[in-house]
């Protein structure tokens, strides 16, 4: 009977439907939010697991910190190597559900690039040091012409700079050095003694065009072949995998496109993407700014071109633009982009001009010098074997393709960890020079004046031959067995039917049984800032839900209080005919329940319909940074049964709470009060 009473009341009071409407809106928004946050969680989980983190990671339980796949400002976590990696790997492969074990070490390296004069001079120095021959001399002659032209450009830029800014003492010295370098006698000397001439240019002139630049390179140290095999989405974009036991680098396609490509080509790509999103040169100032920045880089590009390339580029530009001219004005004209010529110029750039341009700084097969993040790291040369991406985890700008893969021998060298051989050598050397005794660090607070030794300077030994040394480069190959005492963590790839939590439990039991200090971490623990981002979306959803709940609560309670006031007579009559206060209270609460339940179900249905309508084929996500968090370039929002349960129950509860006070106050009306109020109203 109460239910019937409640339904009748709701039907007869359309103003109470406002509460249902609010409940429906909240339910619809929460449905969309839950689905989106769920998609972000699932997408990030997929991206993390399939781009190298694996379902689980195993590390030494004695480590102070757990493994991380993306390093924060604090650098690499403080970890202890896995005990006897070969044996640990065997043990792990024997655990039910483990398909592959891939060794890992995550780090950040640095690639330095000198200014264009530094690069040109280094190239000439290499040729000048080669044994004398007619061919070498001819090459040196060509390079000298090229160098002289570059210096003329430097002098011209310097003059322009001096016209614009006041000169300092240093700039006068620089100008004198340039003047000297452009004199004919200087180049006559170059033919006879190239090295001193180069040294003069390196010391006195090269610095005038800038300091060069460093760029950071995130890497994952691993067994490259094993990694490619274990992670099914791995695909080579260019080049090849290094043979087993060979040092090498595979650049992530994202970092290759972003950081190793000619900056003006990167901007051209960006302009194309912007135009595909609907931006125009006429309507969007940013596009014009990109063009201006590319125009400003033309002198640098020209300085990096050798004579052959510059000639070929000029001929190609003349063909594209249909007019003769000098290279620099032709390039400037080519870069005068607008909405009418962009598509044709884009095609011409990649079709005609790119073959004559240094489109990428390195190509598969080239050698790159990698340094550690500290500025004092000596660096190591490593061959770039190719570029790679993870299929289906976003485009070339996705974070999944942002890290490069590096062999573990090079990683060890970069991290500054000494090999067993180097440690033995250090011990031997310390003993040989009498510096091997252990000593306590002195106190910096209580110290005495230094000892003063009367030392007879050693007799000059000018005639002694200068020392010479054998070049000690890191060899291109390595023995994997030598690295097994320095593996810090490993990714576990599980069989499709395996449950990660159950596998982690089995590993813990095995570690205890065998007395091996092993600990496991899942993708959330190793995700670093990525996990933080996912957590943020969840917090935001909870905050949004809370704010909506408070809004619905307040407005519903106000509406129902007003309605309860209007129903004083009705309630008084019901009480007068014998209805108990409790029954009235439950009747009013039941009205709230009906409004909340019907509203939340309708709202959830609306949300589900919206999701279905918007995303039955998936929603294309163009922003490549987002693609990593959505597990690819297409967002496919999904609804789970628990979404419906959480939304319906949650929203209904909010409405019920909002109904509580109006129902309590409404049910408290006695027949006498109701009659008095009615008389007063009358």
């Amino acid at each position, binding site marked *: 009977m109460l239910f019937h009473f409640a339904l009748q009341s709701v039907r007869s009071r359309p103003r109470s439907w406002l509460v249902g409407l609010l409940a429906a809106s909240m339910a619809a928004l929460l449905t969309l939010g839950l689905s989106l946050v769920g998609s972000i969680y699932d997408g990030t989980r997929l991206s993390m697991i399939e781009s190298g983190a694996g379902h689980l990671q195993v590390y030494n339980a004695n480590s102070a910190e757990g493994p991380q796949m993306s390093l924060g400002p604090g650098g690499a976590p403080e970890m202890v190597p896995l005990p006897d990696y070969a044996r640990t790997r065997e043990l792990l492969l024997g655990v039910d559900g483990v398909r592959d074990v891939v060794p890992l070490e995550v780090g950040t390296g640095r690639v*330095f690039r*000198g200014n264009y004069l530094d690069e040109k001079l280094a190239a000439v*120095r290499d040729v000048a040091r080669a044994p004398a021959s007619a061919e070498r001399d001819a090459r040196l002659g060509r390079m000298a012409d090229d160098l002289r032209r570059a210096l003329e450009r430097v002098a011209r830029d310097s003059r322009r700079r001096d016209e614009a800014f006041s000169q300092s003492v240093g700039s006068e010295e620089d100008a004198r050095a340039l003047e000297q370098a452009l004199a004919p006698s200087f180049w006559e000397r170059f033919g006879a003694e190239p*090295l*001193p001439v180069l*040294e003069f240019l*390196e*010391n*006195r002139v*090269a*610095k005038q065009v800038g*300091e*060069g630049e460093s760029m950071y390179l995130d890497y994952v140290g691993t067994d490259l072949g094993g990694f490619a095999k274990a992670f099914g989405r791995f695909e080579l974009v260019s080049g090849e995998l290094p043979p087993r036991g060979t040092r090498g680098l595979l650049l992530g396609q994202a970092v290759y496109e972003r950081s190793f490509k000619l900056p003006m080509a990167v901007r051209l790509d960006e302009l194309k993407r912007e135009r595909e999103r609907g931006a125009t040169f006429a309507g969007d100032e940013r596009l014009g700014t990109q063009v201006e920045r590319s125009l400003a880089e033309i002198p640098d590009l020209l300085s990096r071109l050798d004579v052959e390339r510059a000639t070929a580029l000029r001929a190609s530009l003349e063909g594209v633009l249909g007019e003769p001219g000098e290279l620099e004005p032709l390039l400037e004209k080519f870069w005068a982009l607008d909405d009418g010529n962009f598509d044709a110029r884009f095609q011409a750039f990649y079709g005609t001009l790119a073959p004559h341009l240094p489109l990428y700084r390195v190509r598969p097969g080239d050698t790159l*010098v990698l340094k550690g993040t*500290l*500025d*004092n790291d*000596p*660096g*190591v*040369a490593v061959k770039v074997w190719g570029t790679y991406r993870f299929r289906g985890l976003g485009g070339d700008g996705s974070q999944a393709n942002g890290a490069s893969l590096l062999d573990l021998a090079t990683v060890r060298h970069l991290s*500054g960890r*000494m090999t067993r051989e*180097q*440690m033995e*050598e*250090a*011990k031997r*050397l*310390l003993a040989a*020079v009498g*510096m091997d005794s252990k000593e306590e*660090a*002195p106190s*910096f*607070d*209580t*110290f*005495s*004046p*230094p*000892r*003063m*030794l*009367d*030392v007879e*300077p*050693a*007799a*000059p030994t*000018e005639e002694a031959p*200068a*020392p*010479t*040394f*054998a*070049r*000690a*480069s*890191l060899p291109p190959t390595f023995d994997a067995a030598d690295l097994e005492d320095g593996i810090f963590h490993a990714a576990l790839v599980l069989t499709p039917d395996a449950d990660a939590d159950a596998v982690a439990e089995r590993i813990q039991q095995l570690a205890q049984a065998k007395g091996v200090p092993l600990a496991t971490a899942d993708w959330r623990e190793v995700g670093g800032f990525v996990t933080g981002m996912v957590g943020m979306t969840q917090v935001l959803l909870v905050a949004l839900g809370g704010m909506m709940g408070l809004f619905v609560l307040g407005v519903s309670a106000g509406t129902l209080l007003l309605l309860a006031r209007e129903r004083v007579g009705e309630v008084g009559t019901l009480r007068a005919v014998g209805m108990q206060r409790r029954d009235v209270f439950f009747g009013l609460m039941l009205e709230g329940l009906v409004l909340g339940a019907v509203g939340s179900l309708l709202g959830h249905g609306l949300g589900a319909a919206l999701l279905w309508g918007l995303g039955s084929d998936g929603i294309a996500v163009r922003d490549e940074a987002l693609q990593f968090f959505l597990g690819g370039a297409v967002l496919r929002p999904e609804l789970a049964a628990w979404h419906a349960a959480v939304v319906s129950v949650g929203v209904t509860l909010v409405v019920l709470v909002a109904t509580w006070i109006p129902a309590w106050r409404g049910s408290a009306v006695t027949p006498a009060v109701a009659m008095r109020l009615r008389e007063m109203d009358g």
Partner: protein
Amino acid sequence: MRTRIPLPSFVLALLLLPVLAVAAEAKEEKEAKPSADALVRQVDKRMSMQSDYRGVVRIRETRKDGIERLIEMQVYRRDSSQNFLMVITQPRNLAGGGYLRIGKNLWEYNAALGHWERTTRRANIVGTIACEGDFDRSRLSEDYTAVDEGEEVIQGTRYRKVYLSARPDTEVSFAHLRLWLDPDLNIVKRIGYAPSGRVLRTDLVRSYQKLKDPVTQQPIIHYREVFEQEEEEGTQLVVRYEDVQLAPLSPNLFTKSWLEGRLR
């Protein structure tokens, strides 16, 4: 005629006499006590030489995890033209590399790669917490301005404390330095600070060596052993300056070609 001094004036003079004596002494002391900048100039002067310099530097590095290594370098200096060359001789994997300064350019030569790279005086060298400035001539007065921080008595010795701030447009390893100078103006303790004021490195000079400049015949002092500790990682260095020779060096020494020629 005898002049008679009135009694009140005589008493006043008697009372003022000690005050005047103290004031005169204070003035004298003040005049005797050199300014902070003068002190730093003195420090530079005591360590500077006209002669060419050649020496061996041995560094024992002890990291926080207990791993030790030894780096040995030959240092060549021509202070008259401010040229500087350092050749790493040990360990094997770094041997043949080095640093060369010609004028304003400081070059780093990576022997393993055969690469030259321009670097700065701010950077650390050979993968340690040491800097080029540790091995070069003392030029504190050229690079810094000094502020006197008074005296501090430690274990019965009175030290002058001087706080140095890098002059604008100078390239130095530490933006600020605090020095403890003993009564003979030897640097005993040195703290290097970042521009923010954060401590980067603390050094304790354990011993000096007395030498005689063969060009000027003047005595000079040179570090013998310095203990250095980096603040952030706790890495410690013991740096020994040995086998010093003060004699003319070949003019061809301070060239890239010479250093490149060290590699077979």
